[in-house]
């Protein structure tokens, strides 16, 4: 079967779907486009007829996502296959983006890895790998894109860290420290880019039902990626806060968690 070229059809049936009204067209680069949260964010952006450049490792998965997003309404979807954990490949990503997707306005970083905490305690290799993926490579690629946006004096960088990065806990400090490091990095970057008018958004989701969290205890109580994606897409709008907790209740939970004195906190089996 041959499939016709995809084009955004104008809604002729009189159906008003949620979210289709505020269409400020965006051009977004998604780093880690095949991750559970990224897929849902991209779908909601596609529904608003945005243009997307998807970056992830697997060409087959990218191809599946590409048609999905086009049928769902994206104006344009480009893909680029790269391993984001390999810093040597980063320059190629920026180069591709500058050539084929030149007037992008948003860089959305959505990749991450959560390894077993106990494994990270017994294996330095795993520890280093986790820090490399979640923190070092993320900081590296954002630095590249930050320079580009700073030069243009416009745009937005949004990156997913985690509530786990707000305070180190014995059960999850491997992942937590990497994401906490990224949060601090984004904080500094935000301040640096503020004069040039580039926004930096730190996204801190609570636990979400994605492939990354499968197998964790209580995973059925975790929030849907659709709901988190909804908050993120709203957060990309102008005028929303710098640090986005999603669902919002985590802002208050983490405020309380951060207030516990360390002498007490270190004794808690969290």
């Amino acid at each position, binding site marked *: 079967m041959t499939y016709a070229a995809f084009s955004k059809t104008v809604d002729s049936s*009189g159906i008003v*779907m949620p979210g289709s009204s505020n269409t400020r067209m965006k051009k977004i680069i998604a780093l880690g486009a095949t991750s559970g949260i990224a897929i849902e964010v991209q779908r909601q952006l596609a529904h608003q007829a945005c243009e997307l450049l998807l970056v992830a490792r697997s060409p087959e998965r990218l191809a599946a996502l590409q048609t999905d997003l086009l049928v769902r309404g994206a104006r344009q979807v480009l893909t680029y296959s790269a391993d984001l954990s390999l810093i040597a490949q980063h320059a190629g990503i920026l180069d591709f983006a500058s050539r084929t997707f030149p007037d992008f306005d948003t860089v959305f970083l959505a990749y991450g890895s959560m390894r077993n905490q106990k494994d990270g305690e017994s294996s330095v290799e795993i520890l280093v790998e986790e820090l490399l993926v979640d923190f070092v490579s993320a900081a590296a690629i954002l630095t590249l894109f930050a320079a580009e946006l700073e030069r243009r004096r416009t745009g937005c960088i949004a990156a997913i860290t985690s509530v786990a990065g707000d305070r180190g806990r014995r*059960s999850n400090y491997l992942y937590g420290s990497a994401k906490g490091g990224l949060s601090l990095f984004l904080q500094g970057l935000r301040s640096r880019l503020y004069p040039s008018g580039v926004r930096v958004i730190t996204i801190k989701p609570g636990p979400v039902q994605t*492939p*990354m969290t499968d197998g*964790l205890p209580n995973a059925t109580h975790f929030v849907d990626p659709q709901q988190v994606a909804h908050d993120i897409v709203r957060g990309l709008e102008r005028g929303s806060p710098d640090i986005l907790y999603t669902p919002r209740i985590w802002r208050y939970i983490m405020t309380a968690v951060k207030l516990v004195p360390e002498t007490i906190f270190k004794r808690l089996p969290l």
Partner: protein
Amino acid sequence: MNSTTQSSYGAPETQPPTLTTLPQGSPAAQSTERVLSWGRYPRAEHRQLFKPAWNDQITEILKDAAQGSLLPFGMGRSYGDSCLNAGRDLVQCHRLNRILGFDESTGVARCESGLTLADIVAVFLPKGWFLPVTPGTSFVTLGGAIANDVHGKNHHCAGTFGAHVHQIALHRSDRGLTFCSSRENPEMLCATIGGLGLTGIIAWADIQLKRVAGPWINAESIPFESLKTFLDLSHDSNDLFEYTVAWIDCFSGKNARGIFFRGNHAPNCQKKFRPKRGPKLPFELPSWILNRFSVRAFNTAFYAVHAARKHRAVVAYDSFFYPLDSIRQWNLMYGRQGFLQYQCVIPEAKLEAFEELLDRVARSGMSSFLVVLKQFGSAPRAGMLSFPRPGLTITFDFAMRGELTLTLLRSLDEIVRESGGAIYPAKDARMSPAMFETSFPSWRDFVPYMDPKMSSSFWRRVTGCP
């Protein structure tokens, strides 16, 4: 917060292959959370739950599985145990939900098996396309709709869902990804439609959508006071209306009173449509809430409201096709013990058997308010194990009250068996092997097409296969 030490596989593209990590396409993460079917009976324990997010992960899951250990699982909207695999594993497919292609000129969409019908409608209705056949809930996956060869209010003119499936790509443990269409492996296509997930895991399917003008339905509701009037209404409506179905008061016995609903897509209606999100039943209600008095009161009120109401209206597609979808988790209404749904078909020539069935249910006083009656059309069966066949089909809900309920259902089985009717596997949790034999006398022809690594609680129960 993830207060845990368990391992899990992150989004694989984020893991550097140069270091010691998983290869791409590693088996999807597994968990052991509890899985129930929609009737919440029986309560089976499963060994593992695979949740693949990409089709490339299924190959690995199939490779590592033991014989007869797996069953694909969608949204768990089958009522009984046809979607369960007690003591073994399930492959939950809801993350395989991408649209892989769409031909705007013909309306053929290629979708992964975990995409729900609700998603399909949400994406394609604004483009002017609708499902060719839809069951009474949109919260089923495409894979589930094919595996149960579901039917809808338009069975008399459109047949079953499977009749609109052009091609299926099927993951098989014994021969890899297999394409099935009317030209290539047609028998495998026929076995997979209505095949209860036992022929393999559907990767994607090409379905033929239907052109519609918009989301509106010209609907009519007509009260009737006897089975004879129902049949006359149904015969008269079948040529003029695309969708027909009836609700009946289960306490009225063979002088069935009820409301006949019929409708067509509205050709040009400029009303604005906004999808609504309904309430959700937050927890199991105590089971005494549904008793013969409360149900009788509901039925009387429902009949009175519809009989008094204007007979013609333009309604949105969702309230016409999916009235129950507006209350999420309505199945919790039946309390902790869950409920059994009973759907059978009886040939029209055996009307007295049908009347006896209605009488027996009325006398028992055990049925609930969700009783649905429909006249099936004479479309040829799309799948080897498809349930719909010419006749009258009726659906009852019974709160599970232990042996009392099971005895009643066995006595209904007798009537269905003698009349040469059949029971619908997607709704069943208890039919005997003999009843299954009567319903699907040629089920042994299906066995050679089964994937050797697939099995289900239902299949083991009704066939005795290990």
